[in-house]
């Protein structure tokens, strides 16, 4: 599931920025193309694609720094809360 999630997110970003060269562990913010418009699209895409809702306290820089960070965020949101 981890690979599928990461590759799906990678495909989305590459679909919008075909020229961008990055791996799933690269800091995409350092590439310079992330703005608030794309950040919004990225969050909307992840929420719709993986049927999760990302709470405010998870909308932080470190969770979106790399594709793998985003995939881990998706997995956390998809997991049932402890005790349920």
């Amino acid at each position: 599931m981890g690979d599928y999630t990461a590759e799906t997110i990678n495909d989305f970003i590459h679909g919008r920025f075909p020229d961008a060269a990055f791996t799933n562990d690269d800091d995409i913010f350092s590439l310079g193309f992330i703005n608030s418009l794309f950040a919004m699209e990225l969050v909307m895409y992840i929420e719709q694609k993986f049927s999760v809702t990302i709470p405010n306290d998870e909308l932080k820089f470190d969770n979106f720094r790399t594709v793998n960070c985003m995939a881990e965020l998706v997995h956390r949101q998809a997991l049932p809360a402890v005790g349920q």
Partner: protein
Amino acid sequence: MTASTPPRTLDQVRDRASARRFVRDHIAATADEYDRLGRVPEPLLDAIGAAGLWAPFLPVDVGGDGVSYTALGAIHEEIGRGCSSVRSLLTVHTMVAFAVDRWGTEDQRRQWLPSLASGRIPASLCVSEPEVGSDATRMTTSARRAGGGWVLNGTKTWITGGRRAGLFLVFARNGPGVTAFLVPRETPGVEITPIDDMLGTRASMLATVTLRDVLVGTDALLGPESFAAGMVLTGTLDLGRFSVAAGSVGITQACLDACAGYTSQRRIRDVPLRELQLIRAKITDMVTDVTAARLLYERAGRLKDAGDAQTIMATWIAKYFASTAAARHASAAVQIHGANGVSARHPVARYFRDAKVMEIIEGSSEIQQITIADAAYQKAMP
């Protein structure tokens, strides 16, 4: 619907048809008059609340009606067909209600959404500033942590509905980012200065809002800080743009309606204007553009309803097309009406003035052209 749920009456349904009836019964006869007075009458604002039109997209559990964004667009189109000032008030109220619903904590949602759904507390959005307009990268209004909360300083202007708003959603610079705050009108240090004599949407009760050492609690912060804070502004403006796109379609439809009626009655050399080919060309262009613009905002609405990220660009495109079409056709409508068109006797003069505003608010046409072209180049990159 369960067996115990009574069927809804016509007044309980929020859709295009109910909005059209509302415009017929409450707006059409008086819009020109209150446009001249520069203020939407309080009884009309109360009637909007009674009709459940302030924020019908909010969930039912907070007092909304849970209507889709597609339906919301149709409602705003119909209201815009009657009066752009009223639609502008709905737009900013919608933006704030959406932001609280989308990014609010449970406490914030419980505190504000029922009053926003009913319209008991009218809301306004504070983004634009006197020196930098709506350029968020140069925003000067500041937010700094102090006394267990935040202190806001700065001046916001062109605030639609600011004259009577009870709640302001204020965007302020907090370090490198821009953060959103919910600021009640009565907070000490909030000063309201009415702005009169605008070219268009004259009754939308604009104001300048000055914030002087306004102290708010930590519960005033709406949404995330850091890099994601910009999303609140982006998402809020996106819905405003959607509403303006729909309202612009309403203006074009109103121009078409007015011109079809006028050219059927008005005669030149014993021939109704409608028989002239140059008139028919203008009518054809209005029909074509209003149909296309409606399809564009409806597409954006369906994408919003699906939670699809493509809605953001679809909304940019819809707003750009619909607002420029409205300005073009409102100009044609005035031309068709001749001297009557520049008089106070026909509403096309109001449509013309209001349509110009649509090309400026929630992202000017030029900003939209830059954004849409940027996206095109990203996709077309070899």
